């Protein structure tokens, strides 16, 4: 399961100064109650007011502590092993967290002198410094002079874009699993709460009224009644169906709770509360363990259900 988004962060006055400096190949420290600090804190630790004085500092310094990263995770500065270090830039009271590029852990030591390796193309981000390298190491990129600004030179940097790309492995509860396995066989399986006797579809790890897992399996009809619905006219990010479409609560015959699904094969203006509908299954060869095995619901053409039969579900 993917959770991906490019976050657009506005910086405010202090971080804007810092990021603009990075874009221009300069490291700007803030003059604070705790001395010169990099990155500048948005609010002074003592006065709690934004710092107003900024001074350029050297892009060289000393490793105060470090660790070896043998197995980098995605989006770290390197895909191969590297070091993270807290680096005290010359003349600065604080340390800066960044990567140090050396071949092996044996090449790292506390107290070693390092300097920034700048990216050629800089945008105003902490990653404009690609990493730090041992101060004595030869220049490994053509541009080590931190003087050539790139994108948007002259204009202050007011925002950054931070991509966040996450991968999760999603698992279903045992009750949900039974339901999804049923779907793979073209069956809709509900379960009954052992306490209140209500039939839940999908089954639940905990009956929301009694706090007990649903148990006795009940095979449900794939026909039911529309209780209520909405006509979606609005496009949105991540949407997989083109609007307009009807999203409806369907109360399957034999179930005590309605569930949401699509209602198609009908003019949205014709959809009514109480409309009788039936599941339209995808071709069997496309079935997986998913509710999407049911392509959508469609009207059966039978007379509408009586209001009294579903009014308790509105």
């Amino acid at each position, binding site marked *: 399961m993917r959770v991906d988004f490019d976050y657009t962060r506005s910086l405010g006055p202090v971080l804007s100064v810092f990021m603009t400096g990075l874009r221009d190949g300069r490291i700007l420290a803030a003059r604070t109650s705790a001395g010169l600090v990099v990155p500048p804190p948005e609010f002074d630790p003592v006065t709690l007011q934004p710092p107003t004085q900024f001074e350029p500092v050297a892009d060289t310094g000393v490793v105060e502590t470090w660790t070896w990263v043998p197995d980098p995770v995605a989006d770290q500065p390197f895909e191969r092993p590297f070091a993270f270090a807290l680096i005290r830039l010359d003349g600065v009271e604080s340390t800066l967290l960044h990567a140090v590029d050396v071949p092996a852990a044996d090449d790292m030591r506390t107290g070693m002198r390092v300097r920034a390796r700048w990216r050629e193309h800089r945008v105003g981000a902490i990653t404009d410094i690609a990493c730090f390298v041992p101060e004595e190491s030869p220049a490994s990129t053509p541009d080590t002079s931190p003087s050539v600004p790139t994108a948007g030179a002259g204009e202050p940097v007011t925002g950054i874009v931070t991509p966040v790309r996450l991968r999760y492995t999603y698992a279903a509860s045992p009750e949900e699993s039974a339901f999804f396995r049923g779907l793979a066989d073209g069956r809709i399986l509900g379960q009954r709460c052992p306490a209140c006797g*209500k039939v839940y579809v999908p089954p639940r790890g905990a009956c929301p*009224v009694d706090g007990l897992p649903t148990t006795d399996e009940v095979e449900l009809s794939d026909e039911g009644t529309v209780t209520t619905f909405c006509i*979606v006219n609005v496009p*949105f990010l991540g949407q997989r169906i083109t609007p307009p479409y009807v999203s409806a609560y369907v109360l399957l015959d034999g179930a005590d*709770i309605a569930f949401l699904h*699509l209602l198609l094969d009908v003019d949205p203006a014709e959809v009514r509360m109480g409309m009788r509908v039936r599941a339209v299954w995808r071709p069997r060869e496309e079935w997986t363990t*998913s509710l*999407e095995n049911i392509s959508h619901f469609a009207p059966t053409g039978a007379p509408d259900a009586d209001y009294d039969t579903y009014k308790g579900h*509105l």
Partner: protein
Amino acid sequence: MTGRPAAVVGIGQTHHRAKRPDVSMAGLCREAIDRALADAGVEMGQIDAVVVGKAPDLFEGVMMPELYLAQALGAVGKPLLRVHTAGSVGGTTAIVAASLVRAGVHRRVLAVAFEKQSESNAMWALSVPVPFVMPVHAGAGGYFAPHVRSYIRRSGAPPETGAIVAAKDRTNALLNPYAHLRHDNVTVESVMASQMLWDPIRYDETCPSSDGACALVITDEDHVGVENPAWIHATAMRSEPTTAAGRDQVNPAAGQAAAAALWREAGISSPIDEIDCAEIYVPFSWFEPMWLENLGFAAPGTGWHLTVAGETSLTGRIPVNMSGGVLSSNPIGASGMLRFAEAALQVRGAAGQHQIAGARRALGHAYGGGSQFFAMWVVGSAPPAT
């Protein structure tokens, strides 16, 4: 009310906008905090504890942002709590802060709630597809629209009811310098003519997505320090499951239970007669009549009578959403606290152009999730009866 008496003595909020590119998250919070501290006449150093409220972390893409914000919030070396109860969180945050004072744990507590929704996209953050589940939702509007339809069916409310609410709230917002949407000449007709998004909800009947923050300073009776505190007369919170067989999403049991507890604690027997104005969490216009019923201002099925008769306008019997409400400003995490803050502003006589003259007791209300988390308080210009 049990515990020590507590009062709101400082209120601050940001100018809410679709996008506040001029500030970071810390800057946004501080804009509200600094105003609240100035209003209370105290400095950060006099605050004993900070309570932070915010809706899902996916909105800003920072896990527990209060950690990195600790210094900006003035919380270093102090207790800091982070509350998340979905859309009701701003209200819950105020209640937790009040509890710290009522419990006698602290004397002076800062509550702050924020959302910087422009850092991402709320529709995306609320609709991240979960495996196995049909991707039919279209954000919050798609979730709530079927229940609005149920309300219309059950109550027989006329179709323009929602538009009356929207026109009123958007017009009230013109009186509130902090409001996000400030549209002139919004009328019932113009709302009815706006695009149908999630039928039966129209574009002008939906809340915006805002950047914004709200902050409150809450103290015990010995540290009030202002002449016009808003005394907290009662608080209530109740929760129920998102879905359950036969659960009523139009008139949820949790809202009814919270309201009953609230009125009992505040010593109120007839809310519509004893509450001078109400700031209610109405993200989609139809929720005004629904919540009027849920809160006991009107009998089930009759809330729309008050709306249609104009009784919820600034000059009506029970003014609702004097500030312009969620329909005019919606930084989700802060939205609940803004409701609580408006109630406090009213009883302090500090609501400016949207002041209800002589307001002595006011309701602040928030809800969240699938109409399942409720938080509310009653504040008054006089100390609570003991």
